[in-house]
């Protein structure tokens, strides 16, 4: 049997094992230790899925039906306005327009300050929201993007679903290991796609968006 990582696409082949990592050929999936991680992206064992019984049926998502009315100017909340501004700030920096970037940063900060605060939040809540998202809003958006063959939208939806799957996997590990999850190790975030990695060194390229390690930044206390 072969198992594929849902985050980075790495394939574990039971017949071949991973001799370089001390896992002999013929090591079956259930003989792999529970704390084994994907050697490419660091995702925990449950993030890999058996390839042979790949699910074909897609989650059924109810659409709001029909296209949004042309005149229906969305009411954007402070959160979305904040992210539009910080995104345009990044856009300006990419074009080496630092002055414009700083201006967008100030406007973004105004909306960020106004965003609704969360109280008594827990990692468990984030975990269940991520699972809902993976069944609801994320595939709904992918359906919309596929319907009009929007490559850019398909690209971002693929990346963000992989990143969300990684966050879900990390939260699942935290539930098991608790505080020890980060003991003696470091945590990193890809500054391009938001991929999160736990380990002493970042991967040489981001498993999701493929930028070099230089763009994967450590998060410290």
């Amino acid at each position: 049997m072969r198992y594929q990582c849902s985050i980075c696409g790495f394939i574990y082949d039971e017949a071949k094992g991973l001799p370089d990592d001390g896992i002999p050929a013929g090591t079956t999936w259930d003989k792999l230790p529970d704390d084994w991680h994907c050697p490419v992206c660091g995702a925990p064992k449950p993030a890999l899925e058996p390839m042979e019984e790949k699910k074909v049926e897609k989650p059924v998502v109810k659409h709001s039906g029909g296209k949004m009315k042309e005149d229906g100017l969305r009411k954007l909340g402070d959160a979305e306005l904040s992210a539009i501004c910080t995104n345009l700030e990044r856009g300006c920096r990419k074009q080496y327009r630092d002055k414009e970037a700083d201006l967008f940063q100030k406007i973004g900060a105004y909306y960020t300050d106004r965003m609704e605060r969360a109280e008594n939040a827990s990692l468990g809540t984030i975990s269940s929201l991520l699972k809902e998202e993976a069944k609801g809003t994320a595939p709904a958006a992918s359906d919309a993007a596929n319907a009009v063959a929007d490559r850019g939208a398909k690209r971002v939806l693929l990346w963000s679903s992989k990143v969300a799957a990684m966050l879900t996997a990390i939260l699942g590990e935290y539930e098991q290991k608790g505080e020890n999850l980060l003991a003696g190790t470091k945590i990193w975030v890809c500054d391009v796609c938001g991929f999160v990695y736990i380990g002493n060194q970042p991967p040489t390229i981001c498993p999701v968006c493929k930028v070099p390690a230089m763009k994967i930044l450590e998060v410290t206390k």
Partner: protein
Amino acid sequence: MRTQHAVRNIRLCTKDCLCLFVCPTGATDTENGQVDWDKCIGCGVCAGSCPSGALSMVPDKLPPQQKKDPEVVRSIFALAKEKLAMEMMAKDIAVNGKNDTEKLLGKAFIRSFRLQAEDLIREAGYMLPQSRNAHELLSEMLAHADGDFPKAEAEELLRMLETND
């Protein structure tokens, strides 16, 4: 008429300084690491001569953004909104988490959710600061501005960024 201008990626620049020698207008001779775009005539000689590949030519007027389907825009914004709600939860956890591990995870997740939301929004009609969408949004922000809104900044952006579509 100039159609492009030179930019310098300071991370690649190894101070070979051939750009200084070849530039006919002295546009590359600056103290801020960037090319002086008021002086640059867009000839591209600096980019062609730079041995470290730090200089490249960027069009003055970028091509228009891809038109977006309203249903794609609506559904992507709905997803981004969820990411941003989780960002706020992560902000709370980064401060009030039960232990240091939770706080550090919270901190990492803040960044992750923000980056995901930004990237989503980029593909929902807000890729270019020069786009009409960005201009219209800035104007709309100004129209609804309260006392704390950074009005001068929004007005300056509208002046500085030329619409490309």
